[in-house]
């Protein structure tokens, strides 16, 4: 940083900017970046938001039951096409699992009953939201840990850079 400050001075760009200016510049760049990120996220969500239901016809007349059915299908993984839910997939197994969900709902079973039925057979992997267990706590806490590391790194870099130019520059002294 000191070197670039000197170079600026040498090019005759006038007095070096105060540290506050540099911080503010960094801050506004960060804000612009985050805004862009949020905007693109919002656009993505707006486009993909409504679930693309693969089933043409409704399973239940009652809208509340239909909603429950769709929500359940949305959180169960299709095990053949592993990056899709059974709501997204038309693989034969996904069809069978949807039928199973329908039948269990008609038999009056609760959502938890159905989730338990699935995990007893296919393991936690069938759930798109894995439960918090000793094996998955790292998975769940990873986003927070990574965010803290990133924020920490940014803070360290910003502090280092903002502190450095305070040292008196021999060229500036003249």
């Amino acid at each position, binding site marked *: 940083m000191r070197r670039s400050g000197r170079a600026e001075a040498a090019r005759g760009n006038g007095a070096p900017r105060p540290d506050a200016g540099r911080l503010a510049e960094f801050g506004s760049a960060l804000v612009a970046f985050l805004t862009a990120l949020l905007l693109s996220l919002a656009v993505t969500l707006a486009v993909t938001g409504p679930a693309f239901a693969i089933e043409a016809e409704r399973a239940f007349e009652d809208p509340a039951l239909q909603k429950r059915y769709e929500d359940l299908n949305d959180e169960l993984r299709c*095990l*053949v096409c*592993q990056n899709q839910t059974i709501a997204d997939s038309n693989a*034969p197994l996904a069809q*069978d699992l949807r039928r199973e969900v329908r039948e269990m709902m008609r038999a009056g079973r609760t959502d938890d009953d159905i989730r338990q039925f699935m995990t*007893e*057979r*296919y*393991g936690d*992997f069938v759930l798109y939201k894995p439960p918090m267990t000793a094996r998955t706590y790292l998975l769940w806490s990873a986003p927070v840990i990574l965010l803290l590391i990133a924020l920490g790194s940014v803070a360290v870099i910003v502090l280092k850079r903002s502190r450095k130019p305070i040292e008196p520059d021999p060229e500036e002294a003249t």
Partner: protein
Amino acid sequence: MWRYLGPLIGVLALGAIFAVTLARIGTGELDVREIPSPLIGKPAPQFELPSVQDENERISTAALAGRPWVLNVWGTWCPGCRQEHDTLLRISSDSVVPIIGLNWKDERSLAMQWLTQLGNPYTKVAFDPEGDVAIDWGVYGSPETFLVSAEGIVIAKHIGPMTEQIWREKFLPLLAEKSGGGA
């Protein structure tokens, strides 16, 4: 010095992990699609289904209790099942353990044709066109092969075509262990 070496070592370490994992997938040692079965160590799900060959014959797990048996899930639409078929025939010729077939989401006529043309390695073949029993067993991709102990506990599962090696190294030792201890 460390300023440059640090990140370099980091990248190399990540690359090494990446390469080793890819190599393990390449040799088949690691199967990223394989889902560990929650069924291992649990009682085998019970079923009673009609036989593929005879609609009136019922095949039930209750009749198999008291000795170890193998469940092999297959369908004529499944390429891996064709691939493992000769191995199953070989294994069944040893008659160490009965192999029960579970014909999954298939058509009866096609299944019969398959067994006539390619040979029948199964002691009995149960017919599950709806796939209900397959769901109870947590089947998600055939072929899948389960080993059930004499006590009716699922003690092993193999996903994908059965091979001589897997039979010898994974299934037979478990079988010997169980029958040796029980008898």
